[in-house]
């Protein structure tokens, strides 16, 4: 194979001369992390709320929540991204769309659209997990909470959700990993996250192997860190005498 390995490209300066390729890569990493983390936090909040609503006795509320989940779960992520970025600003009422296009920098527009897209898409999946967690609890737990005089929200807050979330740490971990992987889709609207920077590196340096190996390793590091953090969460939340713990 005639491929010329050249690992020093990361230290060489970019064509415009102000920085190195390594810095490009790291700025992509930073964008990926910021984007995914903020989307994850929003997804957790929205998903928890929606998941809870799917289990409340009120029929209209649970129907509304089901519709939300089906909507965001069944449209392909890429299509959702284009809708958030290209379509929504055109149809937002009260001058909101124009404000979005004129007052925000292009970078902020991309980041905001990408973040909301990932958050809503993932929230539907989080909602399904939260619902499954709540439904996996013994039915008597809700009755026991209510019977003590807790209101329904208090019953969720103190009785149902603490156990439901413990049960769903593993599936939530994989949703969290997914959001980092899915964030690569956002390069299609021009957001310079990790995957986009990787491709840019290939274009400029013509050293595709080094570039792709580098971004693969960076994604791997993210994976390992997320899994490590979730394992700590799981250990901290372990309930004595329950489910195989001691």
């Amino acid at each position, binding site marked *: 194979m005639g491929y010329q390995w050249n690992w020093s490209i990361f230290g060489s300066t970019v064509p415009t001369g102000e920085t190195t390729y390594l810095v490009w890569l790291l700025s992509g990493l930073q964008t990926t992390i910021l984007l995914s983390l903020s989307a994850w936090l929003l997804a957790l909040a929205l998903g928890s709320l929606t998941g809870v609503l799917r289990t409340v006795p009120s029929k209209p509320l649970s129907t509304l929540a089901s519709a939300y989940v089906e909507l965001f779960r069944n449209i392909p992520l890429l299509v959702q991204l284009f809708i958030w970025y290209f379509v929504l600003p055109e149809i937002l009422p009260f001058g909101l769309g124009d404000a979005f296009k004129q007052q925000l920098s292009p970078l902020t527009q991309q980041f905001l659209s990408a973040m909301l897209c990932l958050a809503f898409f993932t929230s539907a999946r989080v909602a399904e997990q939260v619902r499954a967690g709540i439904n996996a609890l013994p039915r*008597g737990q809700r009755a026991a909470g209510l*019977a*003590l*005089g807790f209101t329904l929200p208090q019953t969720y807050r103190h009785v149902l959700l603490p156990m439901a979330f*413990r049960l769903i740490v593993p599936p939530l971990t994989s949703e969290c990993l997914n959001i980092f992987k899915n964030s690569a889709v956002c390069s299609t609207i021009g957001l310079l996250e990790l995957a986009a920077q990787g491709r840019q590196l290939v274009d400029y340096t013509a050293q595709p192997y080094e570039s792709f190996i580098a971004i693969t390793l960076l994604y791997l590091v993210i994976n390992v860190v997320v899994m490590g953090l979730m394992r700590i969460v799981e250990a901290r939340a372990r309930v*004595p005498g329950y489910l195989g713990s001691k």
Partner: protein
Amino acid sequence: MISIQNVSKHYGTFQVLTDCSTEVNKGEVIVVCGPSGSGKSTLIKCVNGLEPFQSGTITVDGVSVGDPKTNLSKLRSRVGMVFQHFELFPHMSITDNLTIAQVKVLGRSKDEATDKGLKLLDRVGLKAHAAKFPGQLSGGQQQRVAIARALAMDPICMLFDEPTSALDPEMINEVLDVMVELAQEGMTMMCVTHEMGFARKVANRIVFMDQGQIVEDDAKDAFFGNPRSERARQFLAKILTH
């Protein structure tokens, strides 16, 4: 204290309760028994509004349970309930199980609630287990904690739904002993149970249900001496030979 008047309930076309009426006066102990599926759990859950019902009225201490204007949470905080499967909160220590509703519902201070909770835990003989978690206790111990948890709210009456039927035989008595003591102290109690020894010892009246109806509602001696209905006779014969 508890008054149930002509209560009927159905799930779709399935009639679970048909025209049930009975009373539990202050200080009385009523035992509800009957075959599986006869509607005992449903009836007792109607008393604190955990199950809605379509017609009839239930009042607890003068408060109508079915009235949409009734603050059900407030009413429930005054009615203790003990479940077949204990339903302690597994993620909380025994102490937290005993105190959380006192603090969050009754607004008691943490110290006051802990004091009260530990006193009751001592009463059911489990003081040494205050720091443990429910999963670390036996079924009988968990059920005694559940009774203490209900008592910590200073209830005006107690509802029991088959409190011993999920327990191993050797643990049944430790729970029944607590219930007998409670009855003898004058607690108003409505107990779904098939423990006829308990019924004989402390019940004032026995309510026998079959297919969603109250078939018998007799003083204890009359019920055990000479139940009027054939169904009740058969039922008694079956459970007493066990």
